[in-house]
């Protein structure tokens, strides 16, 4: 049982968006940019995508969870820590060390990733809007937690070299979001969380397979 209702939850999101309109617009563009950049061949795009993701996770952890959501939910400070941790992981792995390769790998995983990315960037905010929550409450990837987790998993799934450790916290948040969606009767969160779960499993499987392949190549 959660200490708030769905209407109150979306009301908080709407006021949060209104209070940070410029960031909301920037986040919307950044989310689309992050997905589009995966189609470029330059290796350096990984650092840019990682930086965009890291910035989003950090913003959400500090401004949304800690400063905004904590007034409604006593668990929010814990969520804030998780989101900041994910930001740090992305910054270290993807930006500082350049150990990610987020360029689009294609294939079945790529198709699934595009579908999940479209869900995070388009379907979820449209669902929020059609559910009567109003334009201001339509959630935005890199501004709001659930579409950010979904977009992150989509990018990891699409990657040539999936980084499993970066899928853990997005998966954890998906469980939280799915549970919240179940309790508050927000079906779009429930379905997106299921899709995120499938994506996370695929990331782990592909990541394991890629690692084994790399080890096998090294042996030869």
């Amino acid at each position, binding site marked *: *049982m*959660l*200490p*708030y*209702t769905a209407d*109150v939850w979306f*009301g*908080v999101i709407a*006021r949060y968006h209104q209070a940070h309109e410029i960031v909301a617009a920037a986040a919307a563009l950044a989310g689309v940019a992050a997905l589009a950049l995966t189609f470029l061949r330059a290796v350096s795009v990984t650092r840019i995508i990682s930086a965009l993701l890291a910035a989003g996770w950090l913003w959400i952890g500090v401004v949304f969870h800690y400063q905004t959501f904590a*007034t*409604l*939910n*006593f668990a929010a400070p814990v969520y804030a820590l998780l989101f900041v941790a994910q930001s740090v992981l992305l910054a270290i792995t993807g930006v500082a060390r350049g150990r990610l390769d987020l360029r689009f790998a294609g294939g079945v995983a790529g198709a699934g990733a595009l579908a999940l990315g479209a869900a995070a960037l388009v379907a979820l905010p449209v669902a929020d809007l059609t559910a009567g929550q109003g334009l201001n409450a339509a959630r935005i990837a890199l501004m709001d937690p659930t579409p950010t987790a979904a977009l992150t998993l989509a990018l990891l799934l699409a990657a040539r070299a999936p980084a499993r450790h970066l899928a853990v916290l997005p998966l954890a948040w998906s469980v939280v979001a799915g549970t919240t969606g179940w309790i508050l009767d927000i079906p779009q969160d429930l379905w997106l969380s299921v899709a995120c779960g499938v994506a996370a499993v695929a990331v782990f499987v592909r990541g394991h397979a890629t690692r084994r392949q790399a080890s096998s190549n090294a042996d030869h």
Partner: protein
Amino acid sequence: MHVLRGLSRRRFLAGLGAAATLPWWASFAAGAPAAITRAIPSSGERIPAIGMGTWITFNVGGDEALRAQRAEILRLFFERGGGMIDSSPMYGSSQAVVGDCLRRLGYPAGLFSATKVWTLFDGDGPEQIREARSLWGVERFDLMQVHNLLNWEDHLATLRRQKAEGGIRYIGVTTSHGRRHAELERILRDEPLDFVQLTYNILDREAEQRLLPLAAERGVAVIANRPFRRKQLFRLFQDKPLPPWAGEIDCANWAQFFLKFIVSHPAITCAIPATSQVPHMAENMGALYGRLPDARLRERMVRYAEAL
């Protein structure tokens, strides 16, 4: 004898009949039917038997429209004779919203402020109480409770100290959902308390077996939470008819039926239904008036509810 001149037998008997109903009539004529109150055993102070909870319903954050609407709910609550408002730090922004609403209403005289300390760390208890006073805008709380028995040993010591210093009027502990009843029983036996809060409603009656008799024996007031099982009772019964004898206890709707069952138990001091709807508050507060079921009718109410 001159006053009786011209007075017929019929008129005389009609006058006697009117006189017999005078107290009831007089109270309505005065515009203030008597609310049902219960005595707090440790002091004898009487409080209205229907209070208000704030779990979820008052956790509306900074939404101005919702805060204004909640202020209307509180206005009606006090207008209809309500007293106890129960909250907790666990309830998000509820304490802040309650405080905001009370400020809008000018702190009605009937307020009985009840909140809780809810932290694992005993050192944080005093600070949490201070913060609650600030949020509510009150100088001291009528009742401070240890929420869900979390670190109750340390927090009760803090509450006793503050009560001795005059910072709190009454102290208590809470549980809900029927959890930790065995531990609550031990606390009731061993610790001096003014209040306990537990779940009790027409379907969740486990407390009748040991806790309610023990509370009565120990002179501890009892607050009943989850009187509607968080709306579940309405979902179960809303399409079912009230029993034809509901009028015997002045029940016009299921909310009053459920609440009168609870507050008619001799050990119960107050029930704290929560609502975010003004019409529902009106229904709830209707349970504060009229007749209550006796033991036989209570049994009949249980049989009726269980049969449905």
